[in-house]
């Protein structure tokens, strides 16, 4: 889902001229992602929706002043984050974002259960190899892998992730943002971005594996 720079420039020009189709194109492209991102900071969907709408108001107000130092996309999402944080601070129930990032990147937990690997029983054994090979999903019936039901399980696995991991995998693997864009938008380090993505993907893979095993046994 990459926007070429040329089409972003055209979109911007049309927007500044009050072209409603251009605005529709823009919100069709980004609105659901904005709401999804806002839910990390907001308490419920209604609040997230308000933050997203506030963001569009901010975008329109800031249109003439936008100098294109970042992409239009990054700019819009940065406005969202700022709005969401401000609102989150007012609703003191929300945990600060930095605390969430810490909690989700801290411990050195393995992403694959250690009991799937051989543990050395004496100093001469190296251990660490798979006790049983992961299954080759290419051997599964394609219709099943690509089915709606698989999609539902995938969505459920993502929804079950802790909030920042959920956002990182959504922004990267669903919305197509680059690692750099995600780091800029969420204001997290490259290392943390990778740790969060790593943990999120591993959990989703595991959920899929579990689902395939159960549904095909």
């Amino acid at each position, binding site marked *: 889902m990459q926007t070429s720079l040329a089409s972003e420039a055209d979109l911007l020009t049309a927007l500044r*001229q*009050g072209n*409603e189709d251009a*605005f*529709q194109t823009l*919100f*069709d492209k980004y*609105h*659901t*992602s904005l709401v999804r991102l806002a839910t990390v900071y907001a308490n419920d969907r209604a609040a997230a*929706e308000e933050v997203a*709408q506030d963001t*569009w*108001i901010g975008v*329109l*107000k800031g249109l003439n002043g936008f100098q294109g130092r970042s992409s239009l996309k990054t700019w819009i999402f940065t406005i969202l984050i700022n709005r969401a944080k401000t609102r989150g601070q007012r609703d003191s129930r929300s945990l600060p974002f930095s605390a969430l990032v810490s909690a989700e990147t801290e411990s050195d937990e*393995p*992403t*694959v259960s*250690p009991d799937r*690997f051989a543990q050395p029983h004496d100093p001469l054994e*190296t*251990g*660490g*190899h*798979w006790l*049983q*090979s*992961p*299954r*080759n*999903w*290419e051997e599964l019936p394609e219709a099943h*892998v*690509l089915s709606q039901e*698989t*999609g539902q399980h*995938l*969505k459920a696995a*993502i929804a079950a992730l802790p909030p920042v991991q959920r956002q990182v*995998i959504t922004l990267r*693997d*669903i*919305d*197509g943002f680059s*690692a750099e864009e995600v780091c800029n938008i969420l204001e997290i380090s*490259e290392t943390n971005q*990778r740790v969060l*993505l*790593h943990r999120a*993907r*591993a959990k*989703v*893979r595991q959920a*899929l*594996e579990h689902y395939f095993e159960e549904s095909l046994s």
Partner: protein
Amino acid sequence: MTTPLTCQELVELITDYFEGALSPADRARFEDHLSACTACRSYLSQMRQTIKLTGQLTPESIPLPEQTELLSIFRDWKNNTLN
């Protein structure tokens, strides 16, 4: 001479590998292990498939009331700013 990777170590490096964040030395160790280990190749393939399937999830469409609200925001802005 660096020690070869175990499977258990490899699975924790997989995201760094995809992101191009491994040092050349670590990348060599990673690929060396992979070339000799069908189990890890299966795991890598599962991970690639997971990423691909995730990428195919279609975003939900914007509910009509929200679309209407967004358009009225735009029209307000247009009336107040451009006219």
